[in-house]
């Protein structure tokens, strides 16, 4: 059974269609990437999956549950990292982990082990305000995992991290997946999508334009004048086509 089922999702903000008839499923144990240009509707899509926003139409099932109607149950099973959210300035690293773990049945996972895995032990008594951008990001990922979730949804996972920290984070995400957690990753870094994701949903102008493995997306691309296209080339050509089509539609 799919862990996430999205069918015919629509969301408009005024005149702007943010999500336009998007459908896909996420299978247990995979790392599922959602990629596309800024403003393509990636974040809106995951926010609907998370139950933070209501869709205008279409259905979402997360582990068979409705993220809005069954909010309480979904919250216990899904760990979420948001793009731009923070903690109180004065909270210490260990306090945040200890506090968030107390929100989950049975106290979630062992937050001390998680703190070590995320390389935050040295910073355990540092307040949130004094953490570097990368450390804040690692703490944020740790908080998404501290409830021992079945699904982790991570938005802009490695934004603000240096190259080494990004690679460490990828290893961590693979380790999380190996424990049986399904991972949904929103990113605009193609190297990250290519190395980490089993399958990718490419979203442009609110529409799902492709859904396949990174290798298949690259293989299916023919870019004039480029001998060996990369995933970035593939995604760019897919999203450029949609953008042109959308422009043509609006002009006609």
């Amino acid at each position: 059974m799919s862990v996430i089922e999205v069918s015919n999702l629509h969301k408009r903000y005024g005149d702007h269609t943010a999500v336009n008839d998007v459908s896909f499923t996420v299978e247990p144990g995979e790392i599922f990437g959602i990629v596309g240009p800024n403003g393509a509707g990636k974040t809106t899509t995951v926010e609907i999956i998370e139950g933070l926003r209501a869709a205008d139409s279409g259905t979402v099932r997360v582990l068979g549950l409705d993220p809005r109607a069954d909010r309480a149950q979904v919250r216990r099973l899904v760990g979420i990292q948001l793009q731009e959210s923070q903690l109180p300035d004065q909270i210490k690293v260990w306090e945040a982990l200890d506090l968030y773990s107390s929100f989950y049945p049975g106290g979630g996972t062992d937050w001390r082990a998680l703190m070590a895995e995320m390389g935050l032990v040295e910073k355990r008594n540092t307040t949130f305000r004094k953490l570097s951008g990368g450390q804040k990001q690692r703490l944020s990922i740790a908080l998404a995992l501290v409830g021992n979730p079945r699904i982790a949804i991570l938005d802009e996972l490695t934004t603000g991290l240096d190259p080494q920290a990004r690679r460490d984070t990828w290893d961590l995400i693979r380790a999380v997946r190996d424990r049986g957690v399904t991972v949904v990753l929103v990113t605009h870094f193609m190297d990250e999508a290519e190395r980490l994701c089993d399958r990718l949903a490419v979203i442009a102008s609110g529409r799902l334009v492709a859904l396949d493995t990174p290798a298949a997306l690259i293989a299916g691309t023919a870019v004039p004048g480029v001998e060996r296209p990369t995933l970035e080339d593939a995604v760019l050509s897919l999203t450029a086509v949609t953008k042109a089509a959308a422009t043509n539609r609006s002009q006609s």
Partner: protein
Amino acid sequence: MTAAITTANRTAGAPRMLGKLVWTETKLFLREPVSAFFAIAFPAVLVVVLGKALPGFLEPAEDIGGRRPIDIYLPIVMALAIATVTMISLLSVLTAYRERGVLRRLSTTPVTPANLLGVQLIVNMTALVLGSVLAYVAAVTAFDVAAPANVVGFGIAFLLGSAAMCAIALLIAAVAPTSRASSAIGTVVYFPMMFFAGVWTPGPMMPDAARRIADFTPLGAASQAMQDAWSGDWPQPLHLAVMAVFTACAGAAAARFFRWH
């Protein structure tokens, strides 16, 4: 079987979760030393400084019925404490938590933002009660001020006054677009409220016209009601009604307009 375990976890988990949230928020409250000082220690410090430093504050005065100014000033200090905790501590933490996505982050966990608001009310009200008790103890030990003659009436006035001011803080936090705006609105509300509470013109020294307006402000009503109860009367129905109406209206508007992110 699984359901039974889940239920057991849930029932064992909720008090633990709320307990930890209260404890964490208490620590965070105390880590803002300026605001913690003004909430907890300042009322007592003010009582002592007024009694020791102001001439005539310990002398019986005819225009206040032969009582000493310090005797009628203690309930006013408590009204000031209510205003300080609600318009400064509570308001700034609520707005900052909303503006910086703390509430939004929490809303992705089994905790609801409403849980956090409740915990903030608990922490701030505890600080307020503590500060008021300290002020009382200081007044009794240093200047032999009498206990409130109508304890029940005083308790009602204190609670209702705090509730009205909390509701106003929630409403400002709900409608102010940014932290800066909310602290500006808070300040603009804070100083006139203190005037109407009688901080500068205690008890009968307040001009009649000002008194009539003060009757209809939440803090003025709270201050009057606490002064009445302190001297042995019951709070006037008008004052109780004013506080109740502010609590209900501001509270309902805050609930209606509060955006979690």
